């Protein structure tokens, strides 16, 4: 019964449903023909074409800068938020902070994007900063929602961590800050790397929020792809998408492995 035909078929159907579009995209990225839907033989021509496309290379560079910067800042902020939420017991506004730290996870991107845009515009009018919209505003916007993801990952790791490790370090003469850097940070480091990779991926993927808060000259890769596709799908977009899928897959798998590896060393 358990070894019947139903389970294998269900698994195959599930995987086909999830990955058929991606596989067809990857396959057609190696298509010789200019027509996206007609197979014209194997070739890496569109990858070469991609490397000569200044617009796409420029956008990719912007995306990487944004992803790197926002993942790094988000990891720092998210870790601090998680530390406060797990280690400082009950304090005034704890519930509010918990809710607010995770709200960006479920907030529709359109609303996040729109509200950030309004904030940036009014800040520019009253404070004079940020001057116009561009790289900086995209980084800030991505940091806000990426920090929420990092906070969730770091929080679960901090909760699993044996708090007597920190107490033992206190007991042996280390002050609270020292304990954080000597003990807490190294112990939760794998989770933080995982959080950083996830934040990096999320930032790289984002189209909606970036569209709201970017300005002239600061188009991220997803924005460029989206505008190209509206004029018709060209094979070089397939090649680009294949590369992005590769990067995302590698970081997500690495993040997963790092999160899962956590308890092993504590024994």
């Amino acid at each position, binding site marked *: 019964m358990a070894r019947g035909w139903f389970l294998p078929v269900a698994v195959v159907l599930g995987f086909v449903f999830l990955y058929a579009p991606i596989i067809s995209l990857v396959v057609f990225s190696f298509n010789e023909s200019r027509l996206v839907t007609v197979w014209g033989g194997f070739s890496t021509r569109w990858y070469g074409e991609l490397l000569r496309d200044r617009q796409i290379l420029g956008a990719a560079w912007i995306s990487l800068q944004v992803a790197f910067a926002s993942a790094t800042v988000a990891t720092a902020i998210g870790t601090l938020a998680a530390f406060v939420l797990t280690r400082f017991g009950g304090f005034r506004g704890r519930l509010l902070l918990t809710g607010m730290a995770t709200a960006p996870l479920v907030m529709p991107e359109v609303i996040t994007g729109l509200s950030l845009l309004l904030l940036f515009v009014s800040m520019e009018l009253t404070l004079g900063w940020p001057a116009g919209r561009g790289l900086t505003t995209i980084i800030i916007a991505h940091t806000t929602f990426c920090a929420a993801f990092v906070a969730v990952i770091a929080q679960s790791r901090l909760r699993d961590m*044996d708090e007597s*490790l920190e*107490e*033992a370090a206190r*007991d*042996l*003469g280390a*002050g609270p800050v020292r304990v954080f850097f000597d003990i807490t940070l190294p*112990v939760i480091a794998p989770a933080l790397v995982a959080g950083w990779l996830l934040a990096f991926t999320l930032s790289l993927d984002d189209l909606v929020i970036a569209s709201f808060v970017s300005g002239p000259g600061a188009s991220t890769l997803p924005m460029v792809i989206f505008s190209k596709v509206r004029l018709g799908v060209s094979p070089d977009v397939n090649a680009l998408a294949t590369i992005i899928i590769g990067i995302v897959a590698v970081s997500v798998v690495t993040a997963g492995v790092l999160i899962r590896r956590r308890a092993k*060393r504590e024994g």
Partner: protein
Amino acid sequence: MTQHGSNQPIAAETRPWLDPEAQPFISIRGITKRFGTFTAVNNINLDIFRGELFCLLGGSGCGKSTLLRMLAGFEAPTEGQILIDGQDMAKVPPDKRPTNMMFQSYALFPHMTVEKNVAYGLLREGKSKREAYARVAEMLRLVKLETLAKRKPHQLSGGQRQRVALARSLIKQPKLLLLDEPLGALDKKLREETQFELIRIQESLGVTFIVVTHDQDEAMTLATRIGVMNEGEIRQVGEPREIYEEPNSKFVADFIGSVNLFEGRVEAAAPDLMRLQTDELGPVVTLPRSGLSRNQRIWVALRPERITLSRVRPDAATNVVSGVVQEVGYMGHMSNFRVRLDGGRVIRVTQSNRLRDEDPISWDEPIFASWSPAAVRVLTE
């Protein structure tokens, strides 16, 4: 409480708690800890002396660990004062206290080697690396771990980890070492060996130990004195022998070892013997005890090993009851019996098996149980 103290082999000068002039090293005064509406520790007063190995003994949730954590500085008392070596600890954070703690989970830093774990305390103190590692090597020799210095904690066995934790907590030569269930995670055989190892280390370093444990055998073996705790209060403080032989309450008598308890009242106090009357044992004679009045309600406590079983009726007129053996548990060095008395009450008796070719008492045998007047402990609460 100390009327039987004179026959103890330990010299009086090593038992400062008998000397009313002695200055306590640790003074716990009226300590109370509440978590919300729950009182974990309730108005505890306790003096502990230099060089003692004091055991806080109690079931889970009795407040013993909370008391230990207040000594270490991880919890602040709601009320009361803790003095260590005359110094009030109220405003002193854990990293500035002259105490170190060995945690139940050992709390070894997973990302550091054995050597680095042990050196951590010295390096935080500002010792040079050379001096610190020289001391570490010495300490690892003391706990017999010198060959494992470069290992990480997850590469060690439970017993080895326990010794790393001990070495790490001793490296700063604290005035007071707090140990939270130090042997709890070890298996039985290793635990027994380690008990004596702990005593050896404690005596060779002269550090005062406070050990929290739920294991009465451990407390009896290790302790100079035991504090029996229940529901946040200390029920009795005394040397192991005192706790066992002279429990001050039914709770302590029942908690330490096993005991048969019978309700009764005082009938008459003659100068040499006291007569008690109980429903289940009939008349009982015992050694006189001050502070009891005629007709006062009391409980008779009889340890199972102080009762003798025999097939023929002993000569004595009192302190004898008859019954039938209901169950026998043969343990090798001794046997546990359950004897149903004629009144219906079942009592526990243990007899050591000293002779190899004895004709053993068996199931359903009619039997006499007897005890000497000195075996009876009279309890009033």
